[in-house]
C-alpha cells in the first residue's frame, strides 16, 4: 500500500471530521437548550432558590456531596434529598442546623456553617428545586441515592 496512506488525507480527515462532529454537537446543544423547559423545573426557580444556589456554591458543598451524581463521593447524594427527608424542608434545615462544631469522633461529619434562618430556608428551597428536576428514568435508582 505504498503512498496510498497520505498525510494530506489524514489531515483532511482530522479537520473535516472534527468540524463535522463539532457542528453536529452545536446543533444538538441548540435542540437541548430549547427542550430543557420541559424538564428543568425552571418554573420553580424563585429568588430564594437562586440565593440557595449561591449559598451552595459559596460553601463548596459539591466538595463532599454529589448533586445529580456529580461532585465528590464522600457524602450522600442530594439530588433527591428532599424526597428522602419525607418531602420536608424543615427536616433538611434541622439536619444542617444540628451539625456539631467539632465533628463526631472517628466519623465523617458535615461542618457547622452557622446559617441564619433565612439562609437555611434558601438552601432547603434550592434542594427542593433540584429534586423537582425531571431526570431521565427518575435517577437515582432508589431513595438512598
Amino acid at each position, binding site marked *: 500500500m505504498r503512498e496510498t496512506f*497520505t*498525510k494530506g488525507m*489524514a*489531515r483532511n*480527515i*482530522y479537520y473535516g*471530521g*472534527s468540524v463535522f*462532529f*463539532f457542528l*453536529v*454537537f452545536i446543533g*444538538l446543544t441548540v435542540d*437541548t*437548550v430549547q427542550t*430543557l423547559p420541559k*424538564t*428543568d423545573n*425552571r418554573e420553580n426557580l424563585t429568588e430564594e*432558590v*437562586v440565593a440557595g*444556589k449561591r449559598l451552595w*456554591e*459559596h*460553601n*463548596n*458543598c*459539591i*466538595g*463532599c456531596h*454529589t448533586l*445529580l*451524581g*456529580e*461532585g*465528590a*463521593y*464522600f457524602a*450522600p*447524594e442530594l439530588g433527591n434529598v428532599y424526597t428522602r427527608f419525607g418531602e420536608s424542608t424543615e427536616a433538611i434545615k434541622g439536619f444542617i442546623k444540628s451539625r456539631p462544631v*467539632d465533628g*463526631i469522633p*472517628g*466519623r*465523617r*461529619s458535615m*461542618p457547622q*456553617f452557622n446559617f441564619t434562618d433565612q439562609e437555611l430556608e434558601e438552601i432547603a428551597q434550592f434542594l427542593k428545586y*433540584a429534586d423537582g*428536576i425531571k*431526570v*431521565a*428514568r427518575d*435517577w*437515582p*435508582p*432508589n*431513595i*438512598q*441515592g
Partner: protein
Amino acid sequence: MKYESQSIAKLYFIAAIGLFVGQILFGVILGLQYVIGDFLFPEIPFNVARMVHTNLLIVWLLFGFMGAAYFLVPEESERELYAPWLAKLMFWIFLVAGALTILGYLLVPYATLAEITMNDLLPTMGREFLEQPTITKIGIVVVLLAFIFNIGMTILTGRKTVITLVLLTGLVGLAVFFLFSFYNPHNLVLDKYFWWFVVHLWVEGVWELIMASLLAYVLIKVTGVDREVIEKWLYIIIAMALISGIIGTGHHFFWIGAPDYWQWLGSVFSALEPIPFFMMTLFAFNVVNKRRRDHPNKAATLWALGTAVMAFLGAGVWGFLHTLAPVNFYTHGTQITAAHGHMAFYGAYVMVVLTIISYSMPIMRGREAANARAQVVEMWSFWLMTVSMVFITLFLTGAGILQVYLQRYSEDPMSFMATQEKVEIFYWMREGAGLIFLIGLILYIISFFVKGEDVKMLGSSVSIEETS
C-alpha cells in the same frame, strides 16, 4: 539542547513536580479521611483537601503542558522562543496566583474566600474543579493567552510541523473551552450542561491533542523513526479522539435533566472512545518496535510506552466499563467514577508530562540522558507509581461495585453512610496503595540527584542493561 530559550521549560517542570508532591500529600490525607472521618476536622475538612488535591492536579498539569511546549516548540520551529521574558514573567505570575489560591483554600473558610474575592460580582466559584476564585480564573485566562501568543508566534514564524500545529490547536481549544467556566446560570441543568464544556471537552477533547503531540514528539526523538510515519498516525489518532469524544460528551448528560436522546447518543459515541487510546498503544508499540536507534534514555522510552498502555487502561477500558447508559444508571456518582478518574488522569496526563520531563530534563542539564544509576531509580519509581495506581483503581472499583450492589441494586437498599462502612476495607487498602505511590514519587525526585557516569549515545554499544 539546540536553543537557549528551551531551558525555560526547566522552571515550569520544577514547579510542576513540586505541586505534584503537594497533590499526592493531600491525596494521602483524603484517603485517610475516608476511613478516619474526623481526621484533621474541622481544620482541613474533606472538601477543602479535595479542592486542593484536584486543583493542584490541574495546575501542575498545566505547568507541565506549558513547560513541554516551551521545550519542544523552539526545537520543532527551529528558532528561539518569540519572547522568553514573557514566558518567565508568566511563570511567576501563574505560580504566585496558584500558590495564593491554594493558601486561600487552606487558610480561610471557602465562603470567606468567596467574599474577599468578590465572587458576587461574577459568580463562578463553588463548582467542581472550577472552585478557583473568579480573579484567579481571569488570571488563568491572561496567562494562557500570553502563553498561546508566545508559542503561536514562535510556531507561525518558524518551521511548522504537524506536532506543533496539533499542539497549538490543542492549546487554543484549552483556552477557548475554559471560557465556559465564566458562565454560571441560575438554572442548575444549564449550569451542569455547560460545565461539561470545560471539563469533558478538556480531558476527552483538546487535552488528548496535547497528549498525543507530546507523545509523538518524544517517540520521534527516542526511536528515530521517520517523522512522516509518526505524523500520519498522530492525525488519525486525534481525528478518532475528536470524532468519538465531541458527541461522547453526551455520556455526562444522562441524568442531569437533559433530553432522553442523549442516553443513546452518549452511549453510542462513548463506546467508540477507547479507539483512540487503543490506537495510541498500537502506535507506541509499533514505533518502539521499529526503532532505528537505541537512545540512551531508556527511562523516557519506558514512560512513553507506559503512557500509551495506562491511558488505554484508565481512560479507555475503565471509561468504557461504566459509560453505557444502562450501566451508568447504577454506577453514576459512585466509587467506580473515582476509580476511572484516578487511573485516567494518571495514565493519560500525569504520565505524558512525566515522559516529556524524563526526556528533556537531562538535556536541559547538559547531557543526553541521566546516568545509569539515576535511570534505574527512575524506572523503580515508574513501576512503584504505576503499579500502585493500578491497585488504587482496583480497590476503588471493588468499593464501587460493592457500593452499587448494596446501595443501588439490592432489593433492600442501604443508606449511603451505612454502605460506606461496609466498603471500608477497600478504603484502607487504597490508602496503603496511596502510600506506596508516595514512596514512588519520592524515589522519582531522588532520581534527579543520583550521581553516576554519563551515558552517551554510541550506537547500541552502551546500554542501561550493561551498567545496571
